């Protein structure tokens, strides 16, 4: 299920808390300018595919970009089909896992949540 905003299709939607955390980590890393997060999928990992998250302000030609909550969300084009409909959340608190991908396409995920299969 693709998420659309102003007629533009978004692969990945991020929560407001996730956006805040991205800005916080970017500031800690000393990143200037319009802060962004690149999300992608790599092959392998305990369930077969692995999420990749990179806080960066570098745009690439291979990215689909949409701005949400003041953060540039860049989705690697080759990973797009695996991520359509995914929500990037942030799980806080003592038992929090940090950044969490909630992916409706994932049939299976591994125990720690970084790997999945479709």
């Amino acid at each position: 299920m693709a998420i659309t905003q102003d007629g533009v299709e978004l692969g990945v939607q991020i929560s407001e808390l996730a956006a805040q955390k991205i800005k916080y980590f970017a500031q800690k890393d000393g990143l200037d300018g319009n802060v962004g997060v690149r999300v992608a999928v790599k092959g392998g990992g305990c369930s077969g595919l692995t999420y990749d998250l990179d806080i960066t302000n570098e745009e690439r030609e291979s990215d689909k970009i949409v701005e949400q909550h003041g953060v540039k969300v860049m989705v690697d084009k080759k990973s797009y089909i695996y991520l359509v409909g995914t929500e990037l959340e942030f799980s806080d608190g003592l038992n929090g896992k940090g950044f969490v991908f909630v992916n409706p396409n994932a049939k299976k995920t591994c125990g720690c949540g970084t790997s999945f299969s479709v």
Partner: protein
Amino acid sequence: MTLHRSALHDLIPDGAMEERYGWELPAVFTTASSEYLAAASGTAVHDISYTGRLHATGADVLDLLNRLSTNKVEDLAPGQGAPTILTTDSGRILDLIHVVNVGDYILIMTSPETQQTTIDWLDKYTIMEELEVEDQTTSEAMLHLVGPNSRQWLEQTGGVALEGLQPYGVAPAEIAGLAVQVIDKPFGGTPGFALLLSNQDAPALWKHLVENGVTAMGAEAYETLRVENAVPAYGTEMGEPYNPLEAGLIGSIDFAKGCYIGQEVIARLDTYQKVQKHLVTLRFSAESTPTQGLGLVQDGRVVGRVTSFGSIPNDGHINGLGYVRKAAALEGNRLEMESPAEGWAEITGFSQLFGPGD
């Protein structure tokens, strides 16, 4: 179907060929038992050009292989290598591969006939990674120099300096004026070296070895050497019906490196000691005629199966390999051959193919 022929084909005497893995291979040069004896106590050479060889290039090769297999390969520097197992998401064996960083490319040695499966598997999991994989099996030759004296032969007669050669790694060398990549490739407990070179130079290197004290070894003796050293082979001891812990491949698994396909299953099997069967070495009784797949019986129930056996008796007995259920897999345990076959098979030990992690 046309059979592949190695670069050494014209050196082989007529009538000595057999078909294996889609290749025409020499079965025997002199006698299988003398060839086996040379490998077990001296130095012998076997043409393993039929072993799958892929060349992988691109920035993400080792990174991807690390996420698809059991051993830690992401940090292999040029000259280093490691055995690792490609696994399915249920922790079953796809293939045992030997990954070597040659410098210009990553060499992936697969089992015979599994090259395309490996290429397809890597392709399936390539999403944004940068890598290219090509099958170079027929474009170069590879010889396996094996035996307790193989290292000595290379250093003294071959004039190769081996101090820089790391376990399962590679070093460039020159033997009789020919450019050769020397790869450390033990055959179970027997020392061995794979010699990788051009098809054009292979006949000259073969002649040089054979004329300088190395025994030419055919497929029959090589297979017995494999069984005697409890080295699992694809199709008999390895494949999707088995997981790496059953096959005794624990030395090729890194339990601390993190995520790879099937990792959770393999970690659980190890932690909770849930391995259901073991690959064992077997000694058959003198009158028995083992066959592949033959059942092994205890108290009237089939508790195992024969997977491989040698053709040359050792001390009057043929040795073999088989999978036996955990409860029956005890050293010294004698199992009956499933009728109508006669005789028994005694468990003499467990298969342990060690890697750098042992």
